[in-house]
């Protein structure tokens, strides 16, 4: 058993996995191809609505009303995209969404790790009750939170600030992280902790040197979730960020949608522009998700 996973060991284990994979890849039978085909077909069906969005984002309103939402545009036009960009000042809105979602993703993961360390590894007394309590952050319907939070934010002078939204969502999102990480950590191999303790590591050092590396793959999944969930949050940002300078992408989208100021092509353009950053974020982190394989190789 290894307590700290050195680079060298990680590489050997990665090489070993790669070798077994190569060997196995040669033996793919017709069944494997059938599964691949089935999954590709499923992915295709799942993607249909996105194709519709792209089709309409590239149409002119005239073409849309003539041929309906499902026709393929004759000549792709960027008119709708440009119009939406200008109308909401998309650049500024984008920066706000990035600031808020990015801060929440990082802070909520940190908070989750601290909570989960105490609950999952520390197994402190009453941990189930504490977990139920912390989970309330997610169980409470947001409609019920809006009035009191609005009132409290005004009291402490944080109303209409991005900071208020960051704090609120750090707490709300960390509920899931705390639960997931403490569940994972409660199955953490005890001997590993004891070995580290005997080596003279403090709790703080154990957290960062022993526990943290094992949690890395799960943490990067959490970061992706938190970023995307926060990006798409609507109700609380809508109530909290009243001034135009503070608005987020999904608030700008929802407000325009609600005012019925957008035709179908502009809605699609808005959807496409709102979608691209989160998709990029996910695609960039896909790599981290897959790299988890070597980090999880501690036994």
């Amino acid at each position, binding site marked *: 058993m290894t307590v700290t996973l050195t680079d060298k060991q990680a590489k050997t284990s990665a090489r070993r996995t790669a070798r077994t994979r190569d060997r196995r890849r040669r033996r793919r039978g017709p069944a494997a191809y059938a599964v691949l085909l089935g999954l590709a077909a499923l992915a295709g069906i799942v993607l249909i609505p996105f194709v519709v969005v792209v089709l309409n984002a590239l149409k002119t309103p005239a073409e849309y009303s003539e041929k309906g939402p499902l026709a393929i545009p004759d000549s792709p036009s960027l008119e709708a995209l440009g119009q939406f960009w200008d109308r909401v000042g998309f650049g500024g809105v984008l920066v706000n969404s990035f600031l808020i979602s990015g801060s929440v993703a990082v802070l909520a993961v940190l908070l989750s790790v601290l*909570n989960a360390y105490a609950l999952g590894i520390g197994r402190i007394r009453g941990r189930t009750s504490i977990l139920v*309590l912390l989970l309330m952050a997610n169980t409470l319907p947001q409609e019920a939170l809006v009035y009191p939070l609005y009132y409290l934010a005004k009291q402490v002078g944080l109303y209409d600030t991005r900071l208020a939204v960051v704090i609120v969502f750090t707490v*709300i999102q960390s509920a899931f992280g705390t639960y997931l990480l403490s569940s*994972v950590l409660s199955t953490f191999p005890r001997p590993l902790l004891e070995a580290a303790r005997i080596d003279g590591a403090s709790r703080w050092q154990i957290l960062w040197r022993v526990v943290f590396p094992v949690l890395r793959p799960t943490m990067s999944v959490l970061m992706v979730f938190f970023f995307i969930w926060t990006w798409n949050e609507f109700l609380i940002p809508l109530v909290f960020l009243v001034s135009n300078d503070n608005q987020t992408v999904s608030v700008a989208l929802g407000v325009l949608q609600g005012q019925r100021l957008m035709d*179908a092509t502009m809605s699609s353009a808005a959807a496409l522009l709102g979608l691209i950053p989160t998709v990029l974020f996910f695609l960039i982190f896909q790599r981290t998700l897959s790299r988890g394989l070597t980090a999880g190789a501690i036994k």
Partner: protein
Amino acid sequence: MSTNDLRRTAARDRLGYLPYLVPGLLLFTGVIGVPFLMNVGTSLTRWSGVGTPEWIGLGNYRELAGDGEFWASFGHNALVIVGMALAPTAIGLVLAALLTDLIDRHFGPRVASVLRACLYLPQVLPIVIAGVVWSWLLAPENGAVNELLTAVGLDSLAHDWLGDPATALWSVLAVMVWIQIGFPLVVFMSGLQRVEPSLYEAAEIDGASWSRRFWHVTIPQIRPEIFVVLLWTTIAALKAFAPIYVLTKGGPGGATNVPSYYSYQNFFDKTEVGYGSAVATVLTLIIIALTIVFLRVQARDQGEER
């Protein structure tokens, strides 16, 4: 050392972890604890959101007990749990196992990543937009679903999916499965990365079929994730609001209403803030009760494992 001493050392040792909980508990108190108590307070009043709330004690709760609309909305929630929790978890489990155990190993991790990204994409789409797109696809005239049915000669099946009370809830459930599937998939796939590859190799050498490996290796290895995903999606199902809001607004004729949308209606459409708070409080208490039962079961399960 006597057992007593040992126990005391263990207790002192656990106390040492307490500081790690302090930031979480403080933030929780300010952002969730206090607002929840304020919400409970509001639920004991008649209040339109402005002016002075009028104290009516348990009046709202008495009214709630006899409110047919409220209980009907709870009935729909049972089906929403299938659409948002049970079905996506089961499907996600099979897909995650197929992608990790079969696609990744036979066709390489890149193929698996691409497929995962495609299946996860609906989670990324803002729900407001998903609602608009699905209303296009499910539209009675020129909707893609109906046109597809006509094209393959099944015109008799084509109809107003979201407008007909008989199919509205089922259509919403289908969209929910589409939205949800990526969440369990990604969580399970990240969990499967913890699994020792040699476990699969050993099972394969023993001649275990794919389905045997699925039941005896995959599922036991990612039990923590399965519990987490099930509880989480069930909570999400009980709170389901956005898909209903964007697709049907609870209609037609209340056929797709759920408690959280009902509480929203009271908060913002009917400005019965007191009554809406009561609905939200009852919903919260039900979810908390469910969470407690669920965590007990999970704790027992993990205890057995050790």
